[in-house]
């Protein structure tokens, strides 16, 4: 311990005596560590963190995994929920919910809020009590019970000024008269960003088991029970149901996991892991850089270590002293790293919060907590070993008798040599990987921003409507009439050239539905081809200028009484009937209510890009085509209106609101956005990713450039005498420059070669987030290499110039 303190004191003083070296290494390593800690902190907040509910680890989430496709579904049918609730022995409480948007209207303007439909057990399962009033109970769930609503704290504060008398106040929720019964505590926004909760309508169980609405199910594990037991019970239940309802047999297996694992989308978890892999490369570059600097420093301190060895220091002690220096630098860097991590974390969380579908609000906080401190300690230990082991080991290998041979003068032999060159080559290789990755993600952003949607989206404003009132839901014709009237009124409104209605706009879709040709088995849902279902008004194709490839599009004659028809996109037609005409063929599909219906294809249209927020993230890359159904032959509650404006789209937002309000004063218009906004939203997550990768690339590039600069400067210093001799013998400038830079050029070449290979491997991992860009995109690779070469060249110029300026007299006097 005393020896440790003795060495520590000396190490600290030694580092203080060389502030430039210390600052450089601490900042370099701090950047690498900071980015790694930032990623670990982000993963902790977004993926690993328990939700803020009492004993959250006891709350289980019930899902399914398709044993054929391996896909996981976090939702189960309502019937399954009721079966679980009835049969589970391992749960103390159980509840179900599904998220969406909820219309709230009172004396103020009707507003659409994010909200959830929940069963009475949800709040008990979560263990959260209201701050005011009560939560939804079993009576509220009964068919015909008066409608009620529970408000979130923020909504209560903002809309009702925190007035306690709000309890019992009548409001209209989804066009129904309802009563406010409770207010939840501040920060409670289960499951994600909800402001309002209403009882789930369980009066929807008239369909078949396969067509039942789906919900998420959570349960609190009873004392003495485990989630494994719950999963076993659930699996047994599924098998029972499969035997009881052979027609509804599904190849699903039970998955019961902690709630925390289902709160953040798998996309985030996967992207964060890719980013963690990338940021680990940055740390490796920083470690290699610092290892190079420590080696160079060890070379200059070789005499001191020799003295220590002569005084009786063993090799282990010398090794330990070298490692201690790396450890002190790493500890200082960790402090810098934590600051960088916090800054990056705050920025990242606020950026995520502004995305279209952010993670739950409780996950959007970046904390430096015990977990991150623990990670920091592990990172410090690993980084110390990575950056300090080799220099310390090499510098501990001292020929003690050297002290006798060299006397007070003479050259100190190089401690850098091959090691330094290898480290630079490693840095170059890893930095190139990051640069190529940044290039690929940037290319993806460019691809998305310049995407050919296949539709004319110029000067187009859109808005979303939720037709929740019972009269819309009970009669599809009422909905159709409302939408057709709305479309007509909008088309005649000032500043608007044309309007159309659809349930899904281009670049906004997240849905898929199966389709079956006449010779496919619709019972075998798991193997049926998937496509994107779109319900449209008859002027939709004209509105978006979607080209007709063959046949015809919908007309006024395609109404509720006529033959069920559909239009398919070119891709889907090709996939289902290659080499054949699609017209006249029939397709069976599943409707929104879960029933199946068979329609005749009347036409084929051009391809339109519908995938939005998930574009470029895994499944979003798979093109499945689309099929279109006429508005007049479809049901639905959620609709989008699109209007071509004569001027800047947002200038007619109030016109849109007013026209809708004239038709239905209870109906809010939400998500009022231009199509350009939707495209921007689709690319936002990639923009964020690109920004982060650019940051990683720049840090790695700076580290490598500085490492190369340091190595060349060291080479110039070490070769000063040699340069002087060359100069004295009349060597021209180019010979001096060649002598200094030939090694570094070789390292750049070797590092680049290895880096390109590694980039190809890393690009495979990255392909999950790429859109319309090959992982081997030659443009990204070429630009990265050229940019990299330019930076390396710049880093080499200053030392080379310094070498050229050395005069023979200076060099020969040099000690």
């Amino acid at each position, binding site marked *: 311990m005393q020896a440790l303190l003795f060495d520590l004191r000396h190490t600290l003083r030694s580092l203080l005596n060389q502030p430039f070296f210390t600052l450089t290494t601490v900042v370099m390593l701090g950047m690498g560590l900071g980015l790694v800690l930032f990623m670990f902190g982000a993963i902790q907040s977004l993926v690993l963190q328990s939700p803020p509910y009492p004993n959250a680890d006891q709350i289980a989430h019930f899902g399914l995994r398709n044993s054929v496709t391996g896909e996981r579904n976090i939702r189960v049918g309502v019937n399954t929920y009721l079966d679980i609730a009835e049969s589970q022995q391992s749960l103390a409480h159980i509840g179900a919910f599904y998220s969406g948007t909820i219309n709230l209207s009172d004396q103020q303007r009707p507003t659409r809020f994010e909200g959830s439909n929940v069963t009475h057990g949800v709040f008990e399962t979560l263990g959260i009590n209201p701050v005011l009033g009560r939560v939804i109970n079993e009576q509220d769930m009964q068919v015909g019970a008066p409608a009620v609503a529970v408000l979130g704290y923020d909504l209560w504060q903002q809309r009702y000024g925190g007035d306690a008398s709000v309890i019992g106040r009548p409001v209209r929720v989804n066009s129904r008269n309802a009563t406010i019964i409770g207010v939840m505590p501040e920060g409670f926004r289960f499951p994600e960003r909800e402001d309002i909760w209403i009882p789930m309508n369980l009066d929807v169980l008239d369909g078949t088991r396969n067509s039942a609405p789906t919900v998420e199910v959570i349960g609190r594990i009873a004392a003495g029970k485990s989630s494994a037991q719950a999963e076993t019970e659930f699996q047994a239940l599924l098998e029972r149901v499969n035997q009881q309802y052979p027609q509804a047999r599904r190849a699903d297996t039970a998955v019961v996991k902690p709630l925390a694992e289902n709160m953040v989308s798998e996309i985030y978890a996967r992207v964060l892991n890719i980013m963690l892999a990338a940021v680990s490369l940055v740390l490796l570059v920083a470690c290699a850089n610092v290892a190079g600097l420590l080696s160079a420093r060890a070379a200059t301190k070789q005499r001191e270590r020799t003295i*220590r060895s002569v005084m009786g220091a063993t*090799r282990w002690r010398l090794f330990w002293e070298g490692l201690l220096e790396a450890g002190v630098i790493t500890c200082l860097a960790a402090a810098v790293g934590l600051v960088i991590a916090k800054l990056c974390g705050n920025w990242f969380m606020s950026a995520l919060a502004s995305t279209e579908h952010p993670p739950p609000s409780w996950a959007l906080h970046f904390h430096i907590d015990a977990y991150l401190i623990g990670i920091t300690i592990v990172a410090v230990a690993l980084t110390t070993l990575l950056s300090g082991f080799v220099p310390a080991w090499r510098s501990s290998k001292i020929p003690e008798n050297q002290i006798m041979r060299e006397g007070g003068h003479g050259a100190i032999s190089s401690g850098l040599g091959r090691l330094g060159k290898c480290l630079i080559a490693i840095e170059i290789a890893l930095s190139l990987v990051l640069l190529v990755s940044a290039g690929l993600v940037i290319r993806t952003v460019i691809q998305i921003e310049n995407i050919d949607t296949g539709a004319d989206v110029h000067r187009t404003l859109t808005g979303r409507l939720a037709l929740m009132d019972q009269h819309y839901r009970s009669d599809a014709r009422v909905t159709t009439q409302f939408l057709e009237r709305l479309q007509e009124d909008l088309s005649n409104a000032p500043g608007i050239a044309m309007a159309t209605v659809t349930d899904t706009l281009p670049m906004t879709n997240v849905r898929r539905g199966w389709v079956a040709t006449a010779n496919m088995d619709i019972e075998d849902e798991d193997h049926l081809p998937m496509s994107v279902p779109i319900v449209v008004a008859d002027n939709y194709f004209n509105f978006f200028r979607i080209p007709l490839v063959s046949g015809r599009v919908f007309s006024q004659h395609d109404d509720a009484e006529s033959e069920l028809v559909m239009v398919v996109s070119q891709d889907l037609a090709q996939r289902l009937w290659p080499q054949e005409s699609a017209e006249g063929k029939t397709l069976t599909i599943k409707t929104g209510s879960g029933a199946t219906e068979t329609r005749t294809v009347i036409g084929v249209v051009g391809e339109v890009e519908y995938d939005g927020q998930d574009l470029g993230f895994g499944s979003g890359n798979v093109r499945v085509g689309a099929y279109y159904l006429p508005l007049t032959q479809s049901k639905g509650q959620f609709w989008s209106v699109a209007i071509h404006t004569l001027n800047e789209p947002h200038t007619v937002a109030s016109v849109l609101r007013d026209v809708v309000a004239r038709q239905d004063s209870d109906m809010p218009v939400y998500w009022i956005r231009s199509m350009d906004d939707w495209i921007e939203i689709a690319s936002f997550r990639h923009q964020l990713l690109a920004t982060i990768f650019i940051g990683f690339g720049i840090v790695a590039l700076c580290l490598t450039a500085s490492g190369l600069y340091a190595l060349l400067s060291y080479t110039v210093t070490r070769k000063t005498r040699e340069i002087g001799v060359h100069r004295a013998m009349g060597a021209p400038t180019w010979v001096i420059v060649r002598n200094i830079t030939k090694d570094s050029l070789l390292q750049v070449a070797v590092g680049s070669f290895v880096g390109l290979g590694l980039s190809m491997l890393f690009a495979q991992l990255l392909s999950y987030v790429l859109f319309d860009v090959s992982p081997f995109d030659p443009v990204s690779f070429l630009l990265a290499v050229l940019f990299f070469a330019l930076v390396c060249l710049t880093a080499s110029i200053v030392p080379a110039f310094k070498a050229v300026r050395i005069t023979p007299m200076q060099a020969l006097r040099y000690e």
Partner: protein
Amino acid sequence: MSNGDAIIQMRNIGKVFYADEVETHALAGVHLDINQGEYVSISGPSGCGKSTLLSILGLLDSPSSGQYLLANNAVEALNRGQRSDIRNRQIGFIFQAFNLIGDMTVLENVELPLSYRKGVSSSERRERAVAALEKVDMAHRLGHYPAQLSGGQQQRVAVARALVGAPAVLLADEPTGNLDSKNGEQVMQLLDELHRQGSTICMVTHDSRYADYATRKIFMFDGRIVDEETMHRLRAEEDYRHFDEHKGLRIRSA
């Protein structure tokens, strides 16, 4: 051949260096005994093997052949760790270039050998370092750094560092080589004083004035220990041969 008073006993020590298939015999058939409390100087021309001998004496290097007993223990075949331990406990070094560590204060430099010794508390380390510095009259410069001291003062600190571990023998390699005559004289008087107090000293020097401080003088030539007369004769012969070679004559030695 064992001598009860001898702290150092070397028998037929040889050292061969190999470089690029060239074999260089730095030491050959060296026999040397140094008794407890003896003050020995080693002199000889450049390249005669003085430093190599001192390296082997100080366990900085191992002999290629022969036997070396330090305090009656065979040390010629020890591994690096064992040599480090013995060096730390039994040998004190004084170098021509002082070899103090610039980032350490005078006190820390002197404490350094004790910091590598197990079981020495920090208070004991400090006490012994201060005592050693008092011996060389440098106790008033405890917190100074080497760069703040004159050459003579630095060498006195180096002497204190060599003394602090109470070694069996002090090895001094040209201790006055980097000093002016006044400071050189002071360091020699310091070594003389240490000898009178009982220290065993083995010093390599070029300077015959300083060699005269020793109680026994050893001369080396071509890796062997020779008597003074032989050394002068061999040197004269070599000078003559060198002179004739430059005149283009070839002299064959008999």
